[in-house]
Structures are given as structure tokens and as C-alpha cells.
């Protein structure tokens, strides 16, 4: 049977629709990629609160800041590469320095974007956004979580960066699950080692844990949907209770989720770690599955690294 896969950007689109209905202050700004980011779902229902910005991301972020100063709750929609990279200084000075409730939706995160290639595959957003004071970073594991994260971001009086996928991701959570920004979730208990993942890598981590389980290795799996503020408590508990930690992100290992976890672990309770992610490389064109294999981001890569870590 084919597993049901839903792009997390679809969850974002649904979240915006619900916000449109329940929160009159929510406005959606779009830098031309309105259909690709699913901002068009909101636009079709609430056109009077939709702001077309054209292909001008820097302006969009500062305009959103101005609207937030007047009490609006803006969501800025574009691809992750353009949101985090191109408009970084605007997100720093116009948005984070003033600590405004501006929410940034960066879709098309990671190499799973596929054929568009390196220019459209965002690999540095967690790093770039994590470095900004006041900015929170959320990478939902599936479309259900993406919807909840979108709704939650609107009620947080600080800037939130939301990272979504273009490609379909299997559902790993349920509608009734609680979702709190900044509070990670243990999806599977385990005592030998811990895998901490975010975004579409959560599904790979669960699959790897299953394979390892069959081989007699007990793996704890944590869904770290919020790389910032990081749930330090759950990380330190894992460091103390298991023999090592593997982090997984479809993102550069330079400064991303793995770095955030390592910062906590090595300063408080050092244990062996492996960081799985893109190794300071650019992406390239290809099918999602081909790219995930090439960049060693699959469940079998996690299994391999787990065995290295355990010295087996």
C-alpha cells in the first residue's frame, strides 16, 4: 500500500485559512510565488487581507514590519532561499530588532525540492534565522504539524520563521496531538541511542529506528520541530539516558539543528554525536529520492551512522 504523503506547505495553506477565519488581524504578503507557497488558498478567501508584493523580498519583510507596528499579524510567503538569504538584514533590523509579530513562511526547504536545483533549494535557513535575536525557528515534521505551527505562530508576539517542504512527507502525527512551539516530542522511547530530527527527516528517523530495533538496538526518536528555542531539557535527558545522539536535518550541518543540539550537549553533558545533514555543499537537480540518497539523508544512512556511533 502506498503511504499517504502531503507537502508540509499544504498544512501551512490550511493554517492560513483557519487564521483568516478566526483572526481579523492576520494579513498575508506574497512575493509572487503565491500558488507555490499555498498563500493563494488565503488569497482566494480573504483577498482584502492579501498583499501582493511582487518579486521583491527585501521590501516585503520591511513592509510586514510596518504593518505589524500597526497591530497586523503578517505572514510573509516566499521560498526559503529568498526569505532567509536574500532578506536577512531586513529580517534582522526591520523585524527581529523591533521584536515584531512577523511570521515568515519559507517553503521549498531542502534538497527535496528536486529538479529546480541549487538556486531554489534552501539549505541554510535554520542557521541564518537561528542567529537572529528574538527570531524563533519551526520546522514541522508533517502537514498536520505545519498547520498547527502556522496557527501557533500567529499568537506568539515575536518573529517566527516557518520552514516547509515542497515535496510530500508521510504523516507522523495525528490531528489530536498537542503541539507547542519550543516543546519537542518523544515519538519512540529507546535506551541505546537517541535520534533527534526535524522536518521530513523525522519520518526517516522513525524508519531507521524500526530497522535498528529489529537488529536489537533500542533507539529513542525525538521530533525537534522547533530548532529555536531548542527544548534543552529533552536533549539533556537523552544525553544522560542514552549512549549518544544523532541529529538529522535536510539542511546544512553548519549551524543548523545539529549544531544547536551540540551546543547544549557539549556544554552540559558531553556524549558522542553524529550530525546528519548536507555537508556544506550546494544542491543540484534530480528527483527527490535520488537527491536524498546522494546527500546521505535516508533511513539507511541513519542506520549506518548509528552503528558507527555505537562502535558496532
Amino acid at each position, binding site marked *: 500500500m502506498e503511504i499517504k504523503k502531503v507537502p508540509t506547505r499544504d498544512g501551512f495553506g490550511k493554517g492560513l485559512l483557519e487564521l483568516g477565519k478566526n483572526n481579523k488581524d492576520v*494579513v498575508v504578503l506574497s512575493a509572487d510565488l503565491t500558488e507555490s507557497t499555498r498563500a493563494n488558498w488565503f488569497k482566494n478567501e480573504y483577498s*482584502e*487581507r492579501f*498583499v501582493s*508584493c*511582487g518579486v*521583491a523580498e*527585501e*521590501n516585503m*519583510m*520591511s*513592509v*510586514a*514590519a*510596518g*504593518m*505589524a*507596528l*500597526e*497591530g*497586523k499579524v503578517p505572514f510573509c510567503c516566499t521560498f526559503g532561499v529568498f526569505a532567509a538569504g536574500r532578506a536577512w*538584514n*531586513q529580517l*534582522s*533590523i*526591520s523585524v527581529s*530588532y*523591533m521584536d515584531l509579530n512577523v511570521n515568515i513562511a519559507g517553503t521549498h526547504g531542502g534538497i527535496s525540492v528536486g529538479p529546480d536545483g541549487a538556486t531554489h533549494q534552501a539549505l541554510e535557513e535554520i542557521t541564518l534565522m537561528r542567529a537572529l535575536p528574538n527570531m524563533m525557528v519551526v520546522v514541522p515534521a508533517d502537514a498536520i504539524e505545519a498547520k498547527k505551527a502556522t496557527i501557533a505562530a500567529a499568537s506568539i508576539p515575536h518573529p517566527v520563521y516557518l520552514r516547509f517542504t515542497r515535496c510530500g512527507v508521510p504523516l507522523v502525527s495525528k490531528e489530536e496531538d498537542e503541539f507547542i512551539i519550543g516543546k519537542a516530542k518523544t515519538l519512540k522511547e529507546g535506551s541505546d541511542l537517541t535520534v533527534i530530527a526535524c522536518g521530513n527527516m523525522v519520518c526517516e528517523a522513525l524508519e531507521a529506528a524500526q530497522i535498528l530495533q529489529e537488529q536489537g538496538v533500542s533507539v529513542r526518536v525525538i521530533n525537534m520541530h522547533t530548532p529555536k528555542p531548542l527544548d534543552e531539557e529533552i536533549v539533556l535527558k537523552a544525553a544522560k539516558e542514552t549512549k549518544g545522539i544523532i541529529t538529522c536535518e535536510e539542511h546544512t550541518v553548519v549551524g543548523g539543528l545539529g549544531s544547536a543540539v551540540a551546543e547544549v550537549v557539549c556544554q552540559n553533558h558531553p556524549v558522542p554525536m553524529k550530525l546528519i545533514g548536507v555537508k556544506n555543499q550546494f544542491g543540484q537537480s534530480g528527483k527527490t529520492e535520488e537527491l536524498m540518497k546522494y546527500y546521505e539523508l535516508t533511513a539507511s544512512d541513519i542506520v549506518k551512522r548509528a552503528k558507527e556511533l555505537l562502535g558496532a
Partner: protein
Amino acid sequence: MMKKRPDINELKEKAIKIRSTILKMLQIAGSGHTGGSLSEVEIILTLYKYEMSHNSKKPEWEQRDRFILSKGHGCPTLYAVLADCGYFSEDLLWTLRKMGSKLQGHPQRNVPLGLEASTGSLGQGLSIALGLALAAKMDKKDFRTYCLMGDGELQEGQIWEAAMMASFNKLDNLCGIVDNNKIQIDGFLKDVMNVEPLAEKWESFGWEVIRVDGHDVVGLMDAFDKVREIKGKPSVILADTIKGKGISFMENKASWHGVAPKEDEVEKALVELKKQK
């Protein structure tokens, strides 16, 4: 609708007072932007003493007109005018750029003090002002938004992204002002990166353009009167100014862009300002 105008001579004297305050602030701070602070004095003074609806006793009054200083490095002038309007005591001015001061080297948002937005990274202020104006239109609020830019700042691409979007949205509640002092930190704009013809550029982006002498308070008031009547598009006032205006040895010198005067230089400058009364 004609507004009541302040006494012209009082306004001119106020400009001299503000200039001397700016020089003292910068000398005490030991660093800062002298040239561009002196060139914008009449512009900011006319905004606060004539054009804008605001009340220093109620800084968070919802219907107040908003002012965004996009050329954030010119904040000494804004701080001096805000103090003169009663937003805070003059004592605070002497803490400019000092550790822990609310008067940062570039403005940090503090609405109770009259500071609407954090600016200083050039090119962002017009977009922020646009956001305010757009939100006002959405909510059918009547306040107006003013944004002062530097002419060198117009080299930033973001300004033109905002210029395009403001006219696209017919934001007649938004007024830009360019402090056209023709000098940036590296030298004359015509040598560093020419931005002229400015009137044609703004016009082609769909803005109403008015060109005035930026040191003529009457001309500035006339320009603001005219702008208030323009409907269906944003307006920009191109205010031709002199960098370092009012101090002979500072005028038209790029070297005074980002340097504070020393004690003896302030003394000399104050003597010059006294003669202008």
C-alpha cells in the same frame, strides 16, 4: 484646508537652536553624523512644528501622524526636535551614543519617546512607512505617514521596490522626503554613484514630485500643503539641501559626513550660528 502656520522668524530661530544642540550632542558623544544632521534640520522641524498631527503628552495616540527616519544616521536632529517638542527632557540628549542610553547611535523604536521605528540599515525605512500607510488604509484610519530618506540612500534597491509598491497601492497617505544634500560618506553622489535625474525617477515610479529648497521653511510648508491635497498616489518632496548647512567650514564637505566636531570646532560653529540670529 490651510493650517495655521507658526511664526516664521521663531521657526528660523528654532532651526539655529537645533543646530547648536546637534553640535553639542555630537561633541559630547564623541562620534556621529554631523553633515547629514545639519542638512535635514528645517525638514524635520517643519514636520513637527507645522505639518504633523502629534502630541508629546500622548505619544501613543492612535491617530498621530507617523514619522520614519529612514536615514537613521541623522537621528541627532530628530532627537533634538523631539526634546524641543517635549517628548523627553533635554538632559537625555547628552546621553546620545552612551552605554545604556535610549538614544542609540541609530534610532531604536521607542514610541513613548516619539521614535516610531528602528532604522539605520539604509533602504528599509520607506518600506516600513509603506507598511504603516497600507495598514492605515486597510483599517480606514486617517493618520499620515512621513518618511525622510537620504539621497545617497536612494542607491539602495529596496527604496525602488517600495516606490513601486506604494504607487501600485495608491498610497496618498504616504509622503516621502529626500534630504538631497548631494554628498555621501565617500564623496559627492555624482562621483560615487549618480542618482539623478531624481524627479524623473520618482515620477516614472508613479509618485507626485515637488522640488523645494530644503532650508526654506515657507517653501517646505507650501510643499506639505500641496502634498496633502494629492489623491490617488504617494508624493515625494525633493528637498535640495546643503550638507553641513549653517557652519561655513562644514558645508559641502564629505569629510563631515560621519565625524563629530571637537570642542574648539563647536565653539567656532556656535559663534557662526549666533551671527545668523
